[in-house]
């Protein structure tokens, strides 16, 4: 067979990934330009390693990955337990191993492991995906995700736990969860959101839920139970809310009105909005951002890296970055769609939902429409574990393309 390189390597995904990494490196360079911290060269070094790793992984046949997925999953669970015992405590959470000057975050590793284990589990139906509309199968699938989530919440690292949870619904939806069940699952989110704004909004949310339930024209008893449950959830939200860490509560309230806490949790949001807004259409120019260069935004090379782009490259630069991410996400979904390998298909959807979730939360928080939850911008924020883990995901997604005709 004389296949062209375009058929063997997912060039589009490769090129866009490298483009994102380069943008990230430029942003890190600029963000650390005046402080002089040497994050740029570390990130550069690991980018090169990561890209080689990604290309290497794209050549691994899916069967090998699928077969080892449970072992990898178990190993990652063990690591998550171990990090709770001997991990290094950094800003309040025990989620790091310190190895020769580099911090290693086992939760990043667990992210991939969990997706692979879930994909392996779901792809093992007879001639099709497992039927997750059956309650036991649904429960097992959820358990695979919830075990690491519980361990990560124990660290405690709320942001990463949410990342894990974010993949459940898209993946289950992909393998055939009925829209009706899907909707029932997300009703509590609607109820909680309503409850957050007050009693009137809660009533509105419950009414909305009721109307949509009616539209599905399914069992009226089930509909009634769902509505009653959601009223209960909405009311008990208050208790749940108080179980959050105080700084997380503050961050959530400050999202909707940052001015309530301009120097505390709202500070970053105000400053990052100012930074991005003052960039205008074309930005202030590379290394010329006053907000970012003058360190208004602390540690902007990690979670607030998008500010750099917004301030120094303006609206044009921001849209370019968002577009690159959208291409990646669409490409991942498309790889999931075109591959005949069910295991990789599920895995790609898992990756796509994780990238999307990171993007929405991270960019959302810098432009003031999402709470400040510390999760990185994929492949752009400084962070070696995160960078490598995303590149491994991209490598596996590339293998879905390469082996698209293998069952």
């Amino acid at each position, binding site marked *: 067979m004389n296949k062209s390189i375009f058929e063997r390597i997912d060039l589009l995904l490769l090129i866009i990934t490298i483009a994102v990494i380069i943008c990230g490196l430029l942003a890190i360079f600029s963000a650390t*330009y*005046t402080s*002089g911290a*040497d994050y740029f060269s570390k990130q550069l070094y690991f980018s090169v390693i990561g890209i080689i790793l990604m290309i290497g992984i794209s050549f691994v046949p899916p069967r090998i990955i699928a077969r080892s997925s449970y072992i990898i999953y178990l190993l990652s669970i063990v690591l998550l337990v171990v990090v709770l015992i001997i991990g290094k405590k950094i800003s309040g959470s025990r989620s790091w191993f310190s190895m020769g000057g580099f911090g290693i975050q086992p939760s990043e590793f667990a992210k991939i492991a969990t997706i692979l284990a879930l994909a392996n589990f779901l792809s093992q139906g007879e001639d099709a995906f497992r039927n997750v509309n059956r309650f036991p199968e649904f429960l097992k699938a959820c358990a695979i995700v919830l075990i690491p989530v519980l361990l990560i919440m124990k660290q405690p690292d709320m942001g990463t736990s949410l990342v894990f949870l974010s993949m459940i619904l*898209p993946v289950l*939806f*992909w393998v*055939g969860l*009925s*829209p009706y069940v899907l909707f029932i699952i997300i009703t509590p989110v609607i109820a909680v959101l309503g409850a957050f704004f007050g009693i009137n909004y809660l009533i509105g949310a419950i009414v909305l839920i009721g109307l949509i339930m009616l539209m599905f024209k399914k069992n009226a008893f089930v509909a009634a139970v769902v509505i009653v449950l959601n009223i209960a959830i909405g009311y008990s939200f208050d208790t749940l809310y108080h179980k959050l860490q105080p700084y997380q509560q503050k961050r959530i309230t400050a999202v909707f009105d940052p001015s309530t806490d301009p*120097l505390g949790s709202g*500070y970053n949001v105000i*400053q990052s*909005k*100012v*930074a*991005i*807004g*003052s*960039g*205008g*259409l074309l930005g202030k120019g590379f*290394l*010329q951002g*006053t*907000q970012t*260069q*003058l*360190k*208004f935004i*602390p540690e902007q090379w990690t979670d607030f890296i998008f500010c750099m782009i*917004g301030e120094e490259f*303006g*609206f044009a630069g*921001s*849209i370019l970055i*968002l577009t690159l991410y*959208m291409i990646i*996400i*669409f490409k991942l*979904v*498309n790889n*999931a*769609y075109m591959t005949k390998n069910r295991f990789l298909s599920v895995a790609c*959807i898992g990756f*796509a939902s994780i990238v*999307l979730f990171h993007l*929405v939360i991270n*960019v*959302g928080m810098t*432009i003031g*429409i999402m709470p400040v939850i510390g999760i990185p911008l994929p492949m752009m924020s400084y962070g070696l574990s995160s960078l490598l883990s995303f590149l491994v995901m991209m490598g596996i997604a590339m293998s879905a393309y390469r082996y698209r005709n293998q069952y």
Partner: protein
Amino acid sequence: MDIEKRKFFIYTVCSVIFALFVVRLAYLQLFNKEELAKESDKNAVKTITVTPPRGLMYDRNGNVLVDNKPSYTVTITPSQFDKNNLDEVAGILEIPPEELLENLKSFKGTNRFNPAKIKRDVDFKVISFIAENRDRLLGVDYQTDAIRYYPNNFRGSHTFGYASEISEKGLSKQIGDYYKQGDVVGSNGLESTYEPYLRGVKGYDFITVDVKGRELGSLNDGKNDIPPVNGSDLILGMDRDLQEYAEKLMGNSRGAIIAVDPRTGEILCFVSKPDFDLSSFAGKTDPKVFSALLNDPEKPLFNRVVQTKYPPGSTWKMLMSMAAMGEGILTPTSTVACNGSFTYGNRSFADHGAYGNINVTRAIEVSANVFYYKMGLAVGIDNYNKYGKLFGFGQKTGIDIPNETSGLLPSQQYFDKRYGENKWTQGLLVSLGIGQGELGVSPVQMVAYTAALAMNGLYCQPHFVTKIRSNSNGLEEEVKFEQRRIDMPQSYYDAVKKGMFLVVNGNGTAGNIKSSEFTLCGKTGTAQNSSGKNHSWFVGFAPFDDPKIAICVMGENEGWGSSFGAPVAGALMMRYLGGPGKTIDGDIKSVAGGQD
């Protein structure tokens, strides 16, 4: 719902999210730009670098050796500076206007908002002028910095080294980018070796300023400020009184003194003369002063304790004794005939006298040359090299100041390379046996060797610093240096040490420094010098039974070992053991002897 529809559904969800973000970004960056840009301008922040004072140095008894004193540094914030004032400011700072302009231009990008250090150690008159004309001379300001101050009556130039403004070369060659223009960095001596500890870590204060550069106050109530970490103090093994006395004894002679505690290797005093005044390097260094030092024929910048490579003369005889006994050529009691001269081939080698059949102890006592001519030949070049290495020669001792030499310890390969294979004879070993010829040692190697003999084989790496004390938590961290054991029978050490005892207390070459109070031991040496008067050496230790000090004195062109080295070393050992005020009877010149 088939897979096609599901894909389409996901695409739709993503597209909606994308659209929402685009709308939000457009709202912020295109429609709200003016307002947010104004907000951002209001926000300019000035970063003030806070340089912590360098750590101090203390002697073994807690006396300050190297201190700090305040000085003024003039700064200019380039973004605020009015070019019309260029000539005036250059004038009061005594800098050529072009140079000042060039300097200011180098601060690009957002660094132009921050004050740049322009001139250190500025006179108080200039500072008051700047303070009075602050409104007119926009952007010109000053900071108070700490510069080095030396509170004692001695110099310690080569020990302490100096801390001065980093050079352009130093800036471009640094690893990382901690140092900025105008920063101070340790060069030479302990200031250089312990730079990362002494300097601390710079801090930053953030001050909000409006677009015009007017200060509005501390940013975020100072919560974003990064406090500096003060430099750590060095605690030295040095004895202030002994150091002062040693420099005084050295007077205008050229040479070196180093004394250590043989039990640990801690350096008690360290003198290299001629030396220079460190305070001339503390603030701004006058280039004329520096080039004068550099071109001085007496080489004051040269550290004679660690950089000289002179033959050790007769002070080498203990090493030959150990080598000969170690190789079974001698026993502690066997004798060798010394009849006043020695002939090898057709050349005759002289001695100070004829001593008859003498053992190794007596040979050291009287510094018998014939004895060691014979030992040189008997030991051979390979063992010569082996025992030299064993006692630390031909290699760096690892003393904690830079630029140490390895010296020269000849080997078979060395002579083969120098003269060609088979083109040299064993005759070279005759002179090498008495520590003359192609052999180069430094005083620091000599003192470590002497201390190892005194301690029956415990070889300690000589070092200044014993502890580093953090100024942020007061914790003291011990600094570890190497120790090793030179494993040879005790009877060998006893024979050699007995000889060193008799050099001073018997009928030896340094009887001139005999003391009734302390049992001083040692060995004189006179290094032949083809281009002038001989160099005078003395190595010694005391007291005999329980050594507390080991010393090496080297005087360039001072002649006999007993005429300069011995009296100086004797006086210092007495001073250290007996405390301040104590010394040998009479002055150094009056006890000068005339023996090798």
